């Protein structure tokens, strides 16, 4: 037995690696080490430089992604198609890097003023981003799993970053326990999938599942894998960790979780659904349908009663996850696949801008008010009209009011669902429509406080926002408005058919 396995190993030859295609990952990997080493050398007073260097590392990786996108001639396939750099991967890599950059901007002052461990924080952040960037290209169960863990393990530590704060500790352990549980479920599903199809490569799995009827093992494997990812994207009923972790973790980290790690979960889910599961659409479609409907409804209803803004944003992020999930429930319908893929990507991009922006405003305001209660935002318009207007833009965008990015994303998601044209699609669209109204209620409630109420303690001294936070706000406001007014920019993401082409051919 062992001998036969070893005999297989004997055929192994070193693969020829397209190093250029890996440039973004390599930049990040080298960057992690540079930051780690520099942190040891730098004096305490010069630690601020770490954030700048991290920014440059992310920027360098971003440049590599852009260069690949511009010069790329179609998909670059590495390791026998187990690691693919195509347009789909590049767009998402760019999204992760941009989101991480905004998070670095937001973290800078928070870390300096809180006296946290700056160097280590950025090392972990870049590690996590590296995992995400890998995730976008991973086309094999093992590399998906490794990428997922590479992005999750640093995230556990970042959640518990404020280690003298009991809430932060609690956030960390809750995130950790449920995260590891999810990994185990996912991994078990993967092992069954491997057993059922005989391969860990997504395209092979897709071919095997398409070939012939599904057996019980296939069904169980698919369900386990989808549920495993459901934890990462905090879909109901696997969402319980999200509000607690979001509230307890430092706010910039929460922004990172709610945007980047969630997006990474979606990316993995998309790769699996579109490449490996086209033969199993009868299994995952109803599952995702139910999760999407539950996620948006529960997230919204619970968000309605929150008084803490971060917690409200946490539940809102859960419910937004439901909207992102919605098109995937019809990914297997004939002709809907590309539209669904496009809808999810567009939503992820729009969501990244508006949600990061919302957190940026919260960070800027709570620096002054030192309170996360929604009521403490009263009178914001009177003493910080700029922040109030920015907040209005982000929340209106989250509520889906045109002509902002969130509106276009919602529209796109609805369109993908209704393209399916089945009764299930109409029902889900109706549920989503009702949910947009509920969501509007709590977003508008915050805006009402911002615009109409008086400052709770009568303190109307202006808010001084540090330059990095202002920069983060500028990026996100710009993104939210531009994507809404000129949706052509991201509507073109519909041209990504490389991924869907993988199974169509």
């Amino acid at each position, binding site marked *: *037995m062992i001998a*036969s*396995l070893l005999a*297989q*190993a004997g055929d192994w030859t070193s693969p020829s690696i397209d190093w250029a295609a890996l440039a973004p990952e390599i930049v990040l990997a080298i960057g992690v080490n540079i930051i780690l080493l520099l942190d040891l050398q730098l004096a305490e007073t010069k630690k601020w430089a770490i954030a700048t260097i991290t920014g440059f590392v992310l920027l360098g990786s971003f440049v590599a992604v852009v260069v690949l996108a511009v010069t790329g001639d179609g998909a670059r396939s590495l390791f026998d198609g187990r690691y693919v750099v195509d347009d789909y991967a590049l767009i998402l890599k760019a999204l992760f890097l941009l989101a991480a950059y905004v998070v670095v901007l937001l973290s800078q002052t928070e870390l300096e003023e809180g006296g946290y461990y700056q160097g280590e924080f950025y090392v972990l952040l870049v590690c996590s981003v590296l995992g995400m960037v890998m995730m976008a290209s991973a086309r094999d*169960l*093992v590399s998906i*799993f*490794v990428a997922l*863990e590479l992005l999750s*393990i640093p995230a*556990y*530590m970042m959640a*518990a970053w404020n*280690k*003298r704060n*009991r*809430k932060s*500790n*609690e*956030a*960390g*352990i*809750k995130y*950790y*326990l449920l995260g*590891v*549980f999810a*990994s*185990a*479920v996912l*991994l*078990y599903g*993967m*092992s*069954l999938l*491997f*057993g059922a199809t*005989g*391969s*860990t490569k997504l395209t092979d799995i897709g071919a095997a599942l398409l070939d012939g009827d599904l057996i019980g093992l296939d069904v169980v494997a698919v369900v386990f894998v989808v549920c495993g990812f459901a934890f990462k994207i905090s879909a109901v009923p696997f969402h319980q960790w999200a*509000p*607690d972790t979001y*509230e*307890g973790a430092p706010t910039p980290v929460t922004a990172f979780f709610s945007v980047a790690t969630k997006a990474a979960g979606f990316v993995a889910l998309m790769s699996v659904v579109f490449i490996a599961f086209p033969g199993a659409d009868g299994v995952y479609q109803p599952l995702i349908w139910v999760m999407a409907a539950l996620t948006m409804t529960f997230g919204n209803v619970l968000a309605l*009663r*929150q008084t803490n803004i971060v*917690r409200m944003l946490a539940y809102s992020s859960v419910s937004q996850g439901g909207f992102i999930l919605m098109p995937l429930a019809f990914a297997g319908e004939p002709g809907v696949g590309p539209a669904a893929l496009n809808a999810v990507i567009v939503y992820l991009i729009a969501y990244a801008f508006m949600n990061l922006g919302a957190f940026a405003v919260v960070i800027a305001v709570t620096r002054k008010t030192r309170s996360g209660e929604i009521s403490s935002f009263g009178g914001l318009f009177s003493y910080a009209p700029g922040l109030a207007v920015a907040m209005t833009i982000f929340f209106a965008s989250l509520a889906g009011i045109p002509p902002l990015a969130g509106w276009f994303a919602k529209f796109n998601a609805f369109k993908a669902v209704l393209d399916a044209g089945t009764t299930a699609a109409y029902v889900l669209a109706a549920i989503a429509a009702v949910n947009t109204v509920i969501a509007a209620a709590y977003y508008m409630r915050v805006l009402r406080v911002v615009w109409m109420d008086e400052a709770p303690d009568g303190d109307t001294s202006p808010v001084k926002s540090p330059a990095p936070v202002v920069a983060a706000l500028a990026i996100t406001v710009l993104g939210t408005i531009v994507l809404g007014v000129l949706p052509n920019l991201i509507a073109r993401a519909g041209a990504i058919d490389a991924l869907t082409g993988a199974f169509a051919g």
Partner: protein
Amino acid sequence: MIAVIEPTWYLLLAAMLFGIGAFGLMVRRNPLIMFMCVELMLNAANLTFVAMATRLNDINGQTAVFFVLVVAAAEVVVGLGILVSILRRRPGATADDLAELKG
């Protein structure tokens, strides 16, 4: 030559281990035991990988296990770290005590 055990039995064993782990994670309240339950679940997946690799005569399943082992080790290190920092501030805390955040 040792009598060959059918891979099906390994799969059954793995399923049981996974079930025990999942059950334990839900009912036990000592964070350390909960860690152990998670380990049980991860290793159930490993066992399945190996058993399947044997049945399919495919080395990929075996390599997957190496990756999982490494990742799991890293995971436990982080988890224990977080746990230690909690127990320092609140000795003897159970999962039920960690309920400051709710709603």
